[in-house]
């Protein structure tokens, strides 16, 4: 028995008298020591963490073959084999970086992303709604960012020297053919869609991805919202109309559907404010939309959005061409838009995204001269002013994209796109002669793109896009390249190069001559710094235009496409600064754009600065939330230097277009205010949420001149001014069943 006890004691002693080994060393990342890395012997309690010099040291009683595990956040875990026998060990360990979305550089040259999730967010959806001068119009808010010109008499985005037709808008990947309401001459209409149906906005002022095409200047890429958090009913009321709608979320939270309807009639507004043109048919809009969203599988999602709208307007202005008479313009429009998109994972590494959209747009337009009694008359020499246009357009777009993800954030994507448009119509002249219109186009595109993340500090995006147009009977190949790299701790720099092609605008077709794509080549360089306090971005660009459309006049005083011998350039730089933190509850941003552009296109006699472009544009946007008053105050001040205006007429003697008169308008100034009052904002769990909105655009009633129209003989000119000097809006919005307090606090504070 004693032997057993002795042996046991010996074994016990042996275990407790184990030799201690000292393990020490340094953990580095190439050259820099890593602070806070953890070192542990696998399956043992022993280990340590590194200090600020990357050094560590600890004692262990483990023996023999062991594995040392070293890990640190942002790096790949490293294992080292050890043989512990009592002698101290010293080591130098180098860890490899792990490519991680939160720390990787993001390719941003040319693009502003406004979504709630990405780090490069500049505006979120509530920002768009609360920007004072925007009146809840998406492009109105985009105009406060650098790159956009302040063109007030025409809808659309005029970006970096390009016309509004050179910017295309996409919803869930597919093109939107009629994003704006049909326009009246010299009056800008707004976008059809409410900003609340979108969760993300990317405004690319140049150098956009190979997945998009047919836009010489820029792309506005919108993403619609997914499932709502809760079922809700909404009611909106203002002195220009009302809206109602509801969204129902299924009990299993895997599907939702909703409808809404709105009616707008600006009668009251125009009675209070004086309008320059005589609105004999007050603008009236009926709009409705419907949607459903279904989670088709764990990783699949199907979204549908449908929209319809009917609107009419009639305006009368004093004729500039002849005394005592008026120009009248009436339009009726019926528009229907459907968008269906689907995304799904195919296996572990592949993703598939598809979208289709269909639009039917009917325009009924009537132009005429009228006498003092508002009766239609036909004036000699001005017969072309009397016309009827009945247009019916059907447009179909489809796109499919396959994406394969690789380790880190690298990816490859490729796909194809099809755009179909069929414009039919009838143009009736003053004498009853009818001209049929039939313009049909099929555009087939293919594209491929790759994102390459070499490390967290360097990323590249390479793409190529090819298009074939049936009407032009031509095809193009366009490369797109951009690179981004980290500069310092919070900054990054990007460069981008790309070629962009676009078909000639439909309104100048059909043409008796053979035509080609217009071409723009972009070179962009950008630097940005984003800290928790401020966002700072500066960008410099050069664009070369080739094969721009040149037009010739017809007997009906219209322009038709003649050739692609136009050319031009645009260059400039932009600065953006946003600060949300320095002053409590106060958010402001400043954007400045410098643009130097000249082009020879349409009926321009030579390369001149186009009438929609000006050298300097600056925006100051301010928002302040006063929690005691539960109110948010917003202000926006815009300044732009004067725009050039020209009287370009056909010189019959020399058989070419010439400039008979030109000048520069007065600089543009506009100060706008808006106030949002949220009475239930802090009552958590309140089942009713309301916001009252009051806004005034052009508070100081500054004189705003966008340009000049000339009489047919060039002897008289009239300034083009907004229909009302200032516009006032007052409305209330109620939401039942969902607590939007968090939404509002998140965006306002």
């Amino acid at each position, binding site marked *: 028995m004693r032997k057993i006890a002795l042996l046991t004691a010996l074994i016990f002693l042996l275990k407790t008298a184990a030799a201690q080994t000292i393990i020490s060393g340094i953990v580095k990342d190439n050259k820099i020591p890593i602070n806070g890395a953890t070192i542990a012997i696998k399956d043992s309690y022993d280990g*340590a963490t590194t200090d600020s010099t990357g050094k560590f040291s600890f004692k262990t009683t483990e023996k023999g073959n062991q594995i040392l595990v070293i890990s640190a956040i942002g790096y790949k875990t490293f294992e080292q084999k050890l043989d512990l026998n009592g002698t101290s060990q010293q080591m130098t360990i180098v860890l490899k970086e792990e490519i991680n979305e939160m720390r990787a550089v993001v390719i941003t040259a040319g693009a502003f992303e406004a979504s709630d999730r990405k780090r490069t967010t500049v505006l979120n959806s509530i920002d768009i709604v609360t920007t004072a001068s925007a009146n809840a119009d998406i492009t109105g808010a985009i105009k406060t960012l650098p790159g956009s010109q302040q063109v007030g008499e025409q809808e659309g985005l005029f970006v970096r020297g390009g016309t509004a037709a050179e910017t295309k808008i996409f919803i869930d990947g597919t093109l939107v053919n009629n994003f704006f309401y049909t326009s009246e001459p010299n009056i800008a209409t707004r976008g059809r869609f409410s900003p609340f149906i979108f969760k993300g906005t990317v405004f690319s002022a140049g150098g956009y991805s190979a997945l998009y095409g047919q836009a010489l200047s820029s792309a506005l890429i919108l993403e619609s919202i997914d499932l709502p958090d809760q079922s809700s009913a909404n009611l909106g009321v203002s002195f220009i109309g009302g809206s109602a709608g509801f969204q129902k979320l299924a009990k299993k939270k895997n599907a939702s559907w909703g409808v809404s309807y709105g009616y707008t009639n600006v009668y009251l507004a125009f009675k209070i404010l004086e309008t320059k043109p005589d609105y004999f048919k007050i603008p009236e809009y009926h709009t409705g939309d419907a949607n459903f969203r279904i989670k088709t599988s764990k990783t699949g999602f199907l979204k549908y959005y449908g929209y319809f709208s009917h609107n009419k307007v009639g305006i009368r202005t004093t004729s500039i061409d002849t005394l005592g008479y008026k120009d009248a313009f009436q339009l009726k429009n019926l528009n229907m838009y459907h968008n269906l998109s689907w995304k799904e994972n195919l296996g572990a590494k592949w993703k598939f995204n598809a979208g289709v959209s269909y639009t039917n747009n009917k325009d009924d337009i009537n132009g005429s001269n009228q006498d003092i009694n508002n009766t239609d008359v036909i004036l000699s020499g001005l017969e072309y002013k009397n016309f009827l246009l009945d247009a019916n357009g059907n447009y179909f777009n489809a796109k499919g994209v396959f994406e394969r993800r690789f380790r880190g954030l690298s990816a490859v994507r490729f796909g194809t796109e099809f755009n179909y448009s069929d414009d039919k119509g009838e143009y009736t002249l003053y004498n009853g002669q009818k001209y049929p219109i039939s313009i049909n186009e099929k555009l087939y595109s293919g594209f491929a793109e790759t994102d390459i993340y070499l490390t967290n500090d360097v990323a590249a995006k390479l793409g190529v896009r090819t298009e074939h147009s049936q009407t032009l009977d031509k095809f193009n190949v366009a490369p797109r390249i951009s690179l981004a790299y980290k500069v310092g701790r919070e900054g990054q720099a990007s460069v981008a190069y790309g070629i962009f092609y676009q078909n000639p605008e439909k309104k100048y077709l059909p043409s008796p001559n053979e035509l080609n794509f217009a071409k723009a080549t972009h070179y962009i360089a950008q630097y940005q710094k984003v800290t928790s306090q401020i966002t700072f971005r500066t960008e410099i660009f050069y664009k070369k235009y080739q094969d721009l459309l040149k037009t010739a006049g017809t007997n009906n005083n219209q322009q038709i496409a003649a050739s692609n011998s136009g050319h031009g350039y645009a260059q400039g730089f932009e600065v953006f600064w946003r600060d949300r933190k320095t002053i409590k509850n106060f958010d402001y941003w400043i954007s400045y754009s410098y643009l130097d552009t000249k082009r020879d296109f349409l009926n321009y006699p030579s390369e001149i600065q186009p009438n929609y472009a000006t050298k300097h544009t600056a925006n100051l946007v301010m928002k302040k939330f006063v929690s005691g008053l539960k109110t948010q105050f917003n202000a926006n001040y815009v300044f732009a230097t004067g725009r050039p205006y020209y009287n370009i007429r056909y010189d019959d003697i020399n058989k070419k277009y010439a400039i008979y008169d030109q000048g520069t308008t007065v600089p543009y100034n506009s100060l706008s205010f808006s106030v949002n009052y949220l009475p239930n904002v802090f009552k*958590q769990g309140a089942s009713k949420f309301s916001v009252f909105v009051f806004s005034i655009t052009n508070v100081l009633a500054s004189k705003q001149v966008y340009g000049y129209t000339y009489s047919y003989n060039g002897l008289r000119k009239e300034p083009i001014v907004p229909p009302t000097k200032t516009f006032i809006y007052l409305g209330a919005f109620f939401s039942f069943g969902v607590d939007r307090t968090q939404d509002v606090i*998140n965006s306002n504070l």
Partner: protein
Amino acid sequence: MKKIILTVTLIAGTIALFAQSEKYKSTMKEKIAVLDTTRDVASLKDLSAAFERIGDAEKTQWLPYYYAALAQLNAGNFIYVSNVSNPSELKNLDALADKAEQMITKAEALNKDNSEIYAAKKMIASLRMMVDPMNRYMTYGEQAQQALETARKLNPENPRIYLLEGQDKFFTPEQYGGSKTEAKKLFEEALRKYQSFKPASELDPNWGRSTVQYFLSQIKS
């Protein structure tokens, strides 16, 4: 001889096993006591790593991972308290919250539906919110509420639920729904729960009583 070797091996084996679980208990007890009293951020980070090593070595115990998370959370709170007027320092809290979340996920894998784990999840969400309350109130404020409610459902007698709730009411400004009187009621309830609370083992969470008493002393009726 064979019998002797067998017996010795058996005894040695039992001693080894006994030594092992004794090692676990005594190491944990010692480190939990250190955790209760340490206020130094660097020491807390080391302590968290030490708990993590214990968890990795033991493989079946949730408590080491729970305390590893708690050590990160305590470090985060001390950094917050000393940097409230220097908001640019607060962005480091995200890294601590990430580590705490990594640890609590491991704890949860070993012990689902545990009230203490959900209370810790609430603390993680609150820590993240502290980095940028104005912009993060929506996501993390909501997450913290839900975690606390789950903790309450799993064990309404857990005193730490009332401590955390009381702290929320105490620190939230009045116009955003805070109230010192309501906080006082919650702290008093917490104290009552602490009186009657019996942890499942001597290593199970039992912290916070002194914190409640400190807060009560701060609220002058």
